[in-house]
């Protein structure tokens, strides 16, 4: 079984390794698209078609004003070089070996066994008061996992923070005298390098332009709004934000919402209805799944980033029609994310757009982790692949990550946004966005677009790309099992066992690096991992420190067991300003 077996990949099956090299097919102008629509034969060659190398000229009108190189030639050379890089960028997902899987299962088995014995000998369960005779509020096995597995590693999550989540983070130390049941603050503070927050572009700052602008907004407009935008919550700065977002992502119009999670869960039901078929990636975020469920559309899941699986589902869907009635579907939506936050993979957008055109489906792209963080201009995966933003029907993203704020947006055609203005749950019932939060987005987005008159934003984007590549390559060289795309700022390292996750997180904090551990139920049982989120504010020294710490831990426990060929030559951290133009 190869969960990440993609459509156009050379698989190295004898070693149980699946790697993929993404080949971007460039986006096709709409006139060709209509022609393609007629020909919907079962195609295997679409993915294998050689990429048009001169495609970079198309669809880049929308971001020409952003980078201001000295000469026009530079821009083109930069583009060509980046495109080459993107083509080279591979995605890797080493499969868990049978031995690792066995060990992980064994680990869980021991934990469960100990749990049972524990329950027998010294039962300690939280019981409800004065609810005798009620049906228990939640199932006993649910609380069993919490009590006996999660409780032992509970200190690795929900750590209280006492500072800005910038390049450094201050954790407030806790201690537990009863093995994780309760925690007490010790009052000590631990300063760590922050590799855990989604602060991709480093806009989470408590001083500087963004913070001052936010404070000014508080002084002028207050903190709350106390009304949905539909009633009396719409303010000038929110209209400005809508327009700026539309300009930023390159679509006709946009609508913003005060909470990122709610952008998905409260807007999807307004777009989809019961007669729609949704093809959803298996690794999609909980908010998307909730939104889809609330929309009552039929949901079919395809394998993660696997085009063959998607096409099969598409054909099946169209041929079979709706269940029971066999009526044709009203609309078919492909719901995907730009960068998958747990996998570190980048969606294969050009291929998805080709499928979309071929079968007449619509694409809903969630750019929560990619907007700002991917692409030469920070416009997300669309920019990264050089696609036309108008080809994607619904563009969604959040402001929590790269912009260091909160909230989310949906962008698309004027018709779509009008539909949402009329029917979005967030627009009608959710309180309008807080002025300082909106201001933070306005300031940081203008910075990324270069509209503040500096090249600060472009520098940040380049720094992030440089940091991500360096850190990932170094980890790979050290023999860690690194998931995902070479260019993505989310870098998961597979650890498999829950004990290893906890050990790595604890030891890294001891060595002054804050990382995130992810285990079951957020991942499959045998795919526990730790995740690094790279930021543009990190320096080479910080990354080296983190790498050193990771290698030290790697020597103590067996986690450096990648079976991929390891690059021998030294990985350089290129900190020259014009590395792309050379």
């Amino acid at each position, binding site marked *: 079984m190869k969960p990440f077996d993609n459509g156009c990949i050379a698989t190295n099956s004898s070693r149980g390794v699946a790697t993929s090299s993404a080949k971007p097919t460039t986006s096709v102008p709409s006139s060709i698209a209509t022609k393609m629509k007629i020909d919907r034969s079962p195609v295997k060659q679409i993915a294998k078609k050689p990429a048009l190398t001169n495609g970079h000229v198309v669809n880049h009108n929308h971001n020409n004003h952003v980078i201001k190189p000295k000469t026009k030639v530079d821009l083109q050379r930069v583009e060509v070089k980046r495109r080459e890089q993107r083509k080279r960028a591979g995605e890797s997902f080493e499969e868990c070996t049978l031995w690792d899987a066995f060990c992980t299962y064994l680990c869980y088995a021991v934990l469960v066994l100990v749990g049972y014995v524990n329950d027998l000998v010294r039962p300690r369960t939280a019981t409800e008061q004065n609810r005798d005779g009620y*049906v228990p509020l939640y199932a006993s096995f649910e609380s069993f996992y919490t009590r006996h597995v999660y409780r032992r590693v509970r200190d690795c999550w929900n750590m209280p923070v006492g500072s800005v989540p910038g390049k450094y983070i201050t954790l407030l130390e806790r201690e537990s005298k009863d093995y994780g049941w309760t925690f007490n603050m010790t009052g000590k503070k631990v300063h760590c390098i922050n590799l855990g927050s989604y602060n991709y572009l480093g806009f989470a700052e408590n001083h500087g332009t963004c913070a001052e602008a936010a404070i000014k907004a508080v002084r002028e407009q207050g903190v709350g709004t106390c009304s949905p935008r*539909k009633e*009396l919550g719409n303010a000038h700065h929110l*209209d400005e934000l809508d327009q700026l977002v539309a300009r930023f992502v390159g679509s006709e119009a946009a609508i913003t919402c005060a909470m990122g*999670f709610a952008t998905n869960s409260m807007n999807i039901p307004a777009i989809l209805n019961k007669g729609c078929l949704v093809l959803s990636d298996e690794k999609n975020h909980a908010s998307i799944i909730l939104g889809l469920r609330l929309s009552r559309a039929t949901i079919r899941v395809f394998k993660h980033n696997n085009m063959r699986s998607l096409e099969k589902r598409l054909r099946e869907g169209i041929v079979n029609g709706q269940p029971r009635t066999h009526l044709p579907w009203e609309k078919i939506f492909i719901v995907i994310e730009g960068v998958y936050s747990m996998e570190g993979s980048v969606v294969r957008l050009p291929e998805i757009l080709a499928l979309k055109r071929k079968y007449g489906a619509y694409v809903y792209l969630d750019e929560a982790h990619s907007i700002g963080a991917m692409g030469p201009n920070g416009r997300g995966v669309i920019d990264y692949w050089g696609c036309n933003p108008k080809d994607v029907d619904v563009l969604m993203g959040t402001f929590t990550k790269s912009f*260091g704020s909160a909230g989310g947006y949906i962008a698309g055609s004027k018709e779509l946004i*009008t539909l949402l203005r009329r029917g979005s749950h967030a627009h009608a019932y959710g309180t309008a966005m807080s002025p300082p939060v909106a201001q933070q987005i306005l300031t940081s987005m203008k910075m990324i677009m270069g509209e503040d008159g500096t090249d600060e934003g472009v520098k940040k984007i380049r720094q992030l790309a440089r940091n991500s590549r360096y850190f990932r390559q170094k980890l790979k060289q050290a023999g860690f099992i690194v998931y995902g795309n070479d260019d993505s700022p989310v870098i998961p390292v597979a650890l498999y066992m829950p004990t290893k996750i906890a050990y790595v997180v604890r030891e890294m904090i001891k060595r002054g690096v804050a990382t995130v551990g992810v285990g079951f139920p957020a991942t499959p049982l045998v795919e526990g991992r730790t995740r690094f989120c790279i930021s543009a504010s990190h320096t080479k020294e910080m990354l080296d420190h983190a790498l050193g710490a990771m290698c030290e831990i790697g020597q103590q426990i067996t986690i450096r067991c990648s079976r991929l060929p390891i690059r021998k030559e030294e990985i350089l951290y290129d900190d020259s300003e014009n590395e792309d133009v050379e």
Partner: protein
Amino acid sequence: MLNAVLAFIYQNLIEAPSYHLYLEAFLALWLFWLIRQRKKAEKKKRLTQEEEQLIINAWQPKPLVDEEVTNMESYDNGGIWGPITGRPGKTVEIDGEKYLNVATHNYLGLLDSQELDDAAEQCIRRYGVGSCGPRGFYGTVDVHIELEEKIARFLNLEETALYSYGFAAVASAIPSYAKAGDIIFADEQVSYPIQRGLAASRSSIIYFKHNSWENLQEELEKQRETDKKNAKKAKTIRRFCVVEGIYTKSGTMCPLKEVTDLCKQYKVRLFVDESISFGVLGRTGRGLTEHLDVDRKDIDFISGSLEHSCASFGGFIVGPSYVVDHQRISGLGYCFSASLPPLLAGSGIKALEIIEQSPEIIQDVQDKCVYMHQTFMNKLTFFRVTSHELSPLKFLSLVGSKVLAYDVIKDLIEQVIIHVKEHHKIALVQPYYLESEHELPLPSIRVSINRLLTYKEIDSIAAAIEDVSNSINLYDSVISNIPTQFEETKADMIKSYEAYLKWKQQNNGITGKEALEQDEVFEPLEIAEDSAPKKIADLHSRN
């Protein structure tokens, strides 16, 4: 062994009569034929590659948006108001004009408070704006913990889970407990976030009549009867009851005491949403439970919002640790969403401190709620106040709402709002509902209380609505729009209105219209004692 078996079979074959063998051979062939036939039929059913292609080519998707597009700008702020400039406090500035703001949920007037701004500024200087992570992954800032502890202490309960959006709190909390197969009893007028939560839970939902605990009891009794038939299954079905303290859609107050008693009696878990009533009701602003003196231990969780009285952002679930702790691993909107920006948590803490330290503002706002209620009752001829007198939201429904067409009422109310805007500089709003609401309420004007309003200003709001109603001849529009099948109601209304005008003339010696213009002739409570059908609004309430 094998040899013996084979020998036995051979022996039997030889000894068997020949017709027996023929029959068996025939049966075997028949069976073979049947299986073959079935496979063929199956193959026939399956589509060939070409046929599949045919279907795929023929399929035409509907357009992404199949409705016509109208002016995008007209969808915000009720389609009447332009975007706000500056702070939407007691007064709100729109297009260069200042209006008295009774449209937003700023009950305690904390949005104008400098202290909240100071708290927010301090937080930005310390933590920046965003939290850049969910609660689990370095998104738990110390102000979140402080705010959670504060809310729990304020309501004298064990634990709080803080959500980053008011809508998400109750909408995520319900499905984290109620699953498919469970039963939820809900009031038919619960707010939209609760409805979303109910939908996400996939439990079977039984709506009971609005605020009717008798009806709830009937439903519970019915359920008890069904349970008796299948006692074994009944033991695994969780039962929940969901009500609101003050209903967002109608401003009415829940008879919580009776509901709590029923829930105890039938062993149903009770969730109370106090989004509106938190910070307004009760002697010290602790909500409906304090007002009606209900033991909070009988409620499984109370959900609330910091977006109304507290003039900040976020929602919370507060209750015993056993219940709330479960949120932290299974509340979708809690686990998978970025945490509340620290500056908003900071201003939330400040707002809570203000409420805690100065209970007199609660008393003040309650007095004004009652005064506003009475003023509207006494002064408005064509609108009836349908909300509770202590509710911070006053719903004014047009007379004859029950017999008029939905769009007609909507248009008439919009007319009133536009004229009040132009001539009296007061910002009123019609609450917006989506069509997917469980029970779509009739259009109405919603006036929210603001503690900073003076009694004179409250009078002026009532006078403005009354004045506009007369100047645009609301009465005539209502009467002329009543459909023919309601002739009787129409006649009643005309009669009572004439009686009212007559009464007015007699009492004051001036014409009805003039009487309406002079506010002083209406003394609160005095008119209510009179027995004559003074207003058509009263007539309507009797119907």
